């Protein structure tokens, strides 16, 4: 008897656990990146959208690679990431409906104040990379196939260096998100490639400062797309599209531009509508 | 359900024989005491009779059993009674409920037997906080409440002080007087004389003799029994 009672109680509680999900039925799931979530942008802009439409936006923040994979599996309604090449492939493969450009921020190279590669204050990211490799100065890479990681690798290729040769030596892959990678860089006084948003909201900087910024090649474009309802029928087409439309609308773009940490604007809207 | 007949009963663990080829007939009425030195197999014999162990050879026959499960008509009290983690009353009710009695009938019956063993005022107390003597009295009450035809007692007073032993012996007499067949093992020769009508003397798994108590103590049939009575314990 006690057993049966316990079982029912358990099932009731399981129902209870689901209660928040049932109570808020109007919601969409957005697969996005750690950079947008951790910089605090979503906390700033989503309430504006939710207030206007009554649609709750649930953000699962991962690396761009994982976020796109979530979209491919049909576990998200909208994907909001920053790796143009991968995004275009995502749409071309039929997983996304149409890609819209939303905003950009920029990447920066951070490094220890001691600056063993002697590159502080320069603007040329490629030259900076070459000096780091030449000095065999420690460099912490995310190594997680995220958008930031992809951008970092692209620049190594431009610089004509295969960082894998330094693997285990000066080149360290953390295999984790931006935050953990910055934690690692901070503790071992390594250089690291990061988006400005995460850097500005990052607290455990230790001796790290920005060493290279302002290069055209550090431009970081974000795109947004609805997951293809033709491929995954359960995708919340209308609500998802409402969100996409709002993000690229004048109102959404203003919400992005308004977000600042201190005096710094983190993201620069550039939707082509 | 008596008489009880053991027919060439044997029990061994692996290749070690514990009980060897015992045949005996135990009648209704007289109180039967199983005597023998440590390790003779007394407790095992009792567990075989009670059905807690299965014989490796031979048969146990209850000649008077009219219907059903022989276990329903017998009860056993162990040397160390296991008290359930609940009240004294609930311990007695537990056995009655298993026997299929209604809750109300069980509680009435349980209070009756607790009264008889002198634990009525402790009915609501947790069984495990009772003293050793009280716990053994409770174990007797729990067994007696079932109204068994046969009550097995395995060294029921081995761990008790003289006063508690006296209480237990009085209760055993009362149970006997109520018509329940008593079969018990003991180390205590004085207790055997006080409580026994007949003796089964066991040594090294063998039944040495079955005799009325008077004759057993006056003229034991075997040298081992004689030595056991004199307390010479040659097997130690």
């Amino acid at each position: 008897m006690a057993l049966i009672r316990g079982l029912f109680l358990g099932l009731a509680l399981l129902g209870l656990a689901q209660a928040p999900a049932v109570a808020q039925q109007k919601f969409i799931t957005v697969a996005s990146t750690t950079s947008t979530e951790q910089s605090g942008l979503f906390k700033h802009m989503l309430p504006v959208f939710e207030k206007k439409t009554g649609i709750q936006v649930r953000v699962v923040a991962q690396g761009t690679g994982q976020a796109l994979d979530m979209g491919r599996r049909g576990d998200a309604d909208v994907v909001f990431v920053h790796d143009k090449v991968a995004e275009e492939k995502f749409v071309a493969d039929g997983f996304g409906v149409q890609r819209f450009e939303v905003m950009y921020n920029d990447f920066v190279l951070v490094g220890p104040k001691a600056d063993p590669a002697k590159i502080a204050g320069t603007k040329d990211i490629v030259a900076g990379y070459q000096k780091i490799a030449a000095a065999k100065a420690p460099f912490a890479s995310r190594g997680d196939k995220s958008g930031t990681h992809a951008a970092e690798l692209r620049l190594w290729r431009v610089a004509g260096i295969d960082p894998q040769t330094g693997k285990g030596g000066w080149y360290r892959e953390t295999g984790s998100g931006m935050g953990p990678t910055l934690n690692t860089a901070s503790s071992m006084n390594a250089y690291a490639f990061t988006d400005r948003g995460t850097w500005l909201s990052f607290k455990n900087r230790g001796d790290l400062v920005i060493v290279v910024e302002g290069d055209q090649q550090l431009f970081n474009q974000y795109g947004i797309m609805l997951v293809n309802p033709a491929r995954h029928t359960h995708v919340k087409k209308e609500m998802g599209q409402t969100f996409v439309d709002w993000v690229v609308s004048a109102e959404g773009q203003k919400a992005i531009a308004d977000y600042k940490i201190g005096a710094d604007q983190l993201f620069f809207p550039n939707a082509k509508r | 359900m008596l008489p009880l007949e053991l027919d060439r009963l044997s029990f061994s663990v692996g290749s070690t024989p514990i009980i060897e080829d015992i045949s005996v007939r135990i009648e209704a009425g007289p109180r039967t005491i199983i005597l023998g030195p440590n390790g003779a197999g007394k407790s095992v014999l009792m567990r075989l009779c009670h059905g807690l162990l299965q014989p490796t050879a031979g048969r146990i026959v209850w000649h008077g059993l009219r219907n059903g499960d022989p276990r329903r008509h017998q009860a056993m009290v162990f040397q160390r009674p296991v008290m359930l983690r609940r009240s004294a009353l609930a311990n007695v009710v537990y056995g009655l409920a298993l026997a299929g009695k209604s809750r109300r009938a069980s509680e009435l019956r349980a209070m009756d037997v607790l009264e008889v063993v002198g634990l009525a005022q402790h009915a609501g107390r947790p069984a495990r906080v009772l003293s050793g003597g009280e716990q053994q009295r409770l174990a007797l009450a729990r067994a007696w409440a079932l109204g068994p035809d046969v009550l097995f007692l395995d060294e029921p007073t081995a761990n008790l002080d003289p006063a508690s032993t006296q209480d237990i012996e009085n209760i055993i007499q009362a149970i006997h007087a109520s018509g329940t067949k008593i079969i018990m093992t003991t180390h205590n020769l004085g207790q055997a004389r006080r409580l026994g009508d007949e003796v089964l003397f066991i040594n090294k798994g063998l039944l040495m003799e079955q005799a009325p108590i008077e004759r057993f103590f006056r003229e034991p049939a075997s040298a081992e029994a004689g030595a056991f009575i004199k307390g010479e314990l040659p097997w130690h």
Partner: protein
Amino acid sequence: MTSLWEAFAAAWALIAGFDATLAQIVGLSLQVSLSAVLIATCFGLPLGAAIAVERFAGRQALIVLLNALMGLPPVVVGLLVYLLLSRAGPLGSLGILFTPTAMVIAQTLLIVPIIAALSRQTLEDAWREYDEQLRSLGARRLNAAMTLIWDTRFSLLTILLAGFGRAAAEVGAVMIVGGNIDGVTRVMTTTIALETSKGDLPLALGLGIVLIGLVLLLNTAAALLRELAQRRYG
């Protein structure tokens, strides 16, 4: 040293200024982990009891397996549940990925072996003591198992607490199947992971102290209950 002090200060500030967000996160943590413990008990306890009192072929192997499963990495369980509940997975149509329900399922899987294996040990020890007495009184297996569970209830409570501790402390599984969605599936451990990756180590550690405090509180309550019961029931 300074960051440790900062952590304690942060923990204190969190508790003193108990804000709605933190309350919601703590509440969800408790709700998810307690649900998981309850459901895991419904499966784990009968399983443990059955193994304790029954003798069957492969029993020893099952015990070894359960003991091994106690060390199941949460991330693996999380991944397994994720693949099951993902829209592309066999249970995708339920649509419960990234909900507290998914987290309850993952934690339940994680602690069923703990509750089954530990209760098996406790009940088997008790069974050794009770076996003959219960059979003498005419108890069948099911009766005996229920009696053992009732009589060892205070030891079993400790086992449930161990299960709760494991559930409340793990981060790998709930992160994957819950997605750490703000206000929906964000629990204490995923918040700690998030704050750590934001580099706000004092806040992360502060949250950790709050979590430990909660678990400590629960364990203290259980220990007191047990102590009281021991004195009362012997």
